[in-house]
């Protein structure tokens, strides 16, 4: 039976190096390019028509834009709207990385912990920078929930620091684990299908079909969760609780 972790293996296609840094091309980097190309193409095409009565693609793009905008307004308020392009890009990048990973033969970029970690840490660092820029030293209030009695502070502050550090970790691991787990299960079921042969193989194969639908849903949900948590963290930085 095939190793279910096999689809996550990477192989260098074109060795490249930049100032001593290894930037060799592999399946994951090429998938990222495809994601950029697909998202750019769709969004440019959606914006090109500018019809008063929207076309189908324009309608979907406007729905998405409206959805992200209301998400920002709910979590960050009006000040958050300047992060709108960033949040949209984040959502579309993660969503299409997840969805493209479901195409047979492609690579799920978001099943690489390092990829999700870069996104999560960047977003978290951004939220801290925004907080410091807006509130200066008062931003440290984020470690003391309002109404905490003074004698509890020695206990509360370490807990808050841990919870703050858990944010990027949870963000990164959640996406990575969901994507990896889904594909592992799919891989296992496909392995069973092949191992089972015609006699019993149809059962795991039927499961893969159902699970595939679930995975499409998870692709959307995980992109949404990552984006809305980003909004919440940025909102915390803007409003200090």
């Amino acid at each position, binding site marked *: 039976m095939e190793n279910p*972790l*096999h689809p*996550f*293996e*990477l192989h*260098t296609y074109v060795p*490249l190096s*930049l100032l001593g*840094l*290894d*930037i*060799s*091309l*592999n399946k*994951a*980097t090429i998938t*990222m*390019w495809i*994601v*950029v190309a697909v*998202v*750019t193409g769709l*969004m*440019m095409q*959606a*914006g*090109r028509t*500018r*019809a*008063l009565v*929207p076309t189908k693609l*324009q309608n979907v*793009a*406007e729905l998405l*834009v*409206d959805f992200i905008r209301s998400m920002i307004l709910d979590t960050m308020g009006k000040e958050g709207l300047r992060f*709108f*392009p*960033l949040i*949209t*890009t984040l959502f*579309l*990048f993660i969503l299409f990385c997840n969805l493209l990973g479901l195409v047979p033969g492609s690579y799920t*970029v978001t*099943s*690489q*912990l*390092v*990829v999700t970690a*870069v*996104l999560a840490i960047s977003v978290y660092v951004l939220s801290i920078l925004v907080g410091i820029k807006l509130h200066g030293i008062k931003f440290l209030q984020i470690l003391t929930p309002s109404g905490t009695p003074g004698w509890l502070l020695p206990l509360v502050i370490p807990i808050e620091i841990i919870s703050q550090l858990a944010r990027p970790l949870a963000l990164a691991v959640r996406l*990575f684990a969901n994507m*990896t787990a889904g594909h592992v299960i799919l891989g296992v079921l496909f392995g069973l299908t092949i191992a089972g042969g015609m006699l019993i193989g149809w059962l795991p194969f039927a499961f893969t079909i159902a699970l595939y639908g679930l995975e499409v849903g998870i692709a959307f949900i995980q992109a949404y969760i990552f984006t809305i948590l980003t909004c919440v963290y940025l909102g915390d930085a803007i409003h200090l609780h």
Partner: protein
Amino acid sequence: MPQFDTHFFSSLIFWEVVSFAILLWVLYKYALPPILESLEIREQKIRQSIEQAEQNRLAAEQRLKEYEAKLQAAGREAEAIIADAKNKAQRLLEENEQRLRAESERIQAETAQEIDRQRRKALEEIREQTADLAILVAEKVLERSVTSDDHKRLAQEALEAVAATYGNGKTARP
């Protein structure tokens, strides 16, 4: 797990950052503005349409009120005109009645006068003719000439006799 193979970390991080940056730049610069713009335009358009519709509705209501008021005024005016016409007709009728009554009374009076006059005239004529006839008869009866004094006396007597017979005494003269 193959994901923890650090060999690929540098290229993955590099290309992720590059890809994400390119995507962010393209969306921010080229893709999102037209979508946002068309959303904005549609929002404005819808708001304008709703405002316009509201204005139209108010105007229509205003006009309806005006028309209803005009209709009521016209109704009142029509009633007034009908009442006036009725009054006039009534007055005209009464006037005509009065005039006709007066006219007929006048005609009656004139007729009575005329009849009276004609009667008197007839009486006068009869009286004259009777006098002549009396003279004639007297001459025949007497078959003689009489003196002028006799003539006169006889005529007078005959006249009185006639008057006594036909008149009512008023016409008798000495």
